[in-house]
């Protein structure tokens, strides 16, 4: 009984470190293709769930990059994902933790219409707001970046 608290503490530390090394996807968003711009660029509308508008644009940017890389967006030019999230090894997980943790993904996503929200895309559902952003993703550059870092294989090789 004396050492029970110590073991619980150890278990907590171990589980916390395990959580840091694992990679978790955010599933609370909807995404739909809007229109295609120039080649290698995807314009997508992302609906995120948030209690306030503040910070939801950054969340939408992260979600759309995750959707392009791990899920694919049906109906757009990126229907198939770059990589399956179930087959990530530790090195890849660490890479994506850094990629999303240090916000390197912001280089490949931007707002399509200077960040304004069109009427009807700001809706309250339950306790949350469902906010839609029109985002532009540099898909070709993102793929090239992942290829250069050895995360995915180059096409045709």
């Amino acid at each position, binding site marked *: 009984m004396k050492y029970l608290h110590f073991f619980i503490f150890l278990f907590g530390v171990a589980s916390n470190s395990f959580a840091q090394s694992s990679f978790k996807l955010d599933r609370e968003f909807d995404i739909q293709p809007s229109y295609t711009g120039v080649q290698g660029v995807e314009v997508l509308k992302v609906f995120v769930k948030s209690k*306030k*508008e*503040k910070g939801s644009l950054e969340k939408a940017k992260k979600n759309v990059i995750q959707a392009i890389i791990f899920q694919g967006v049906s109906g757009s030019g990126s229907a198939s994902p770059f990589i399956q999230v179930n087959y990530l090894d530790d090195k890849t997980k660490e890479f994506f933790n850094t990629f999303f943790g240090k916000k390197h993904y912001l280089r490949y996503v931007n707002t399509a219409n*200077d*960040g*304004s*929200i*069109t*009427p*009807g*895309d*700001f*809706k*309250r*559902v339950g306790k949350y*707001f469902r*906010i839609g952003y029109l985002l532009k993703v540099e898909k070709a550059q993102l793929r090239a970046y992942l290829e250069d870092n050895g995360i995915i294989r180059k096409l045709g090789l």
Partner: protein
Amino acid sequence: MRKVSVLFLMIFFSANSIRAQFGINTTLFSIKPVTAKVSYEKDGVVVGDLFKVFYEKDKSNGSTKDVKVGYVMAHKIGSSTIKNNKTSKVYDGNTPLTVFKKVGVRNVEKGMEIKKVKRNFISYGAEYSLQDNTFFSGPTVLASFKGATGTISFVIVSNLKFSTNTPITYNRITKNYDIKSWGSIGLRGEKILAFLNYFQVSGLVGFFGAPLSVDNIGKTSNNTEYAYGRLAPWYVYGGLKLSFNINPRIQFYVQDLYTANLVSGNWDIDYHGGAASATSLESQLKDNLRFQANSISFGIRIR
């Protein structure tokens, strides 16, 4: 003639309803400051226009309803052709942004929709001043056209109650003038200095004079001659106003006005049926009316 006027009214109101259907409906672009992409050229927004802020909410049966958050008022309009201190200097590319001030609203979020609110062309209200024997003593009725922020409101002030029983001696005839009610007409400019949600602080500058009716002047106890007075003083006043907007249409306020004498040496009394005369009423009224005075008044305004 009546048919023509009815037809005109039908066309007028139908045009207004069509305009309401195709009115401005856009979203807020930023919160600090509150801006939206509406402009003078595209949407006809002018300073003082009121917009309802709302968002959609899903109902249990699948339909949506609009939830009103509050109101915002156009403070600096976005314009690509007009450049002055009432136009916005916040630009985003080629799209001018209109800057709004919050009116009775707290939690606005970027992305909430705004819709232009149709307002009365004439706003009206009433004031009551506590001080006695000033030009703003007692109850006051006022009306203003297009009670817009930053513009000059046309204010009609009436029923300024002050009375004197001071005997006025003219041609060795002493009369007791009982001046109880009269009206003046003037212009009042209101400039909003600061907004804080429901509260706003405004500066007031105006002038008035030219009484509309002074029927009670000359009604004496010992002389039944009907007379009217023609007073032609002009006064300027200025002060501060603290308003509480419980609603964009209903405003309670307290204001402190200081009245100063601009031109006051031209007081005349004319007699109908009697000898034409002119006397200085001002000197008789000076003991009873403070021409340069500070008056605190409370009021309500409905827009």
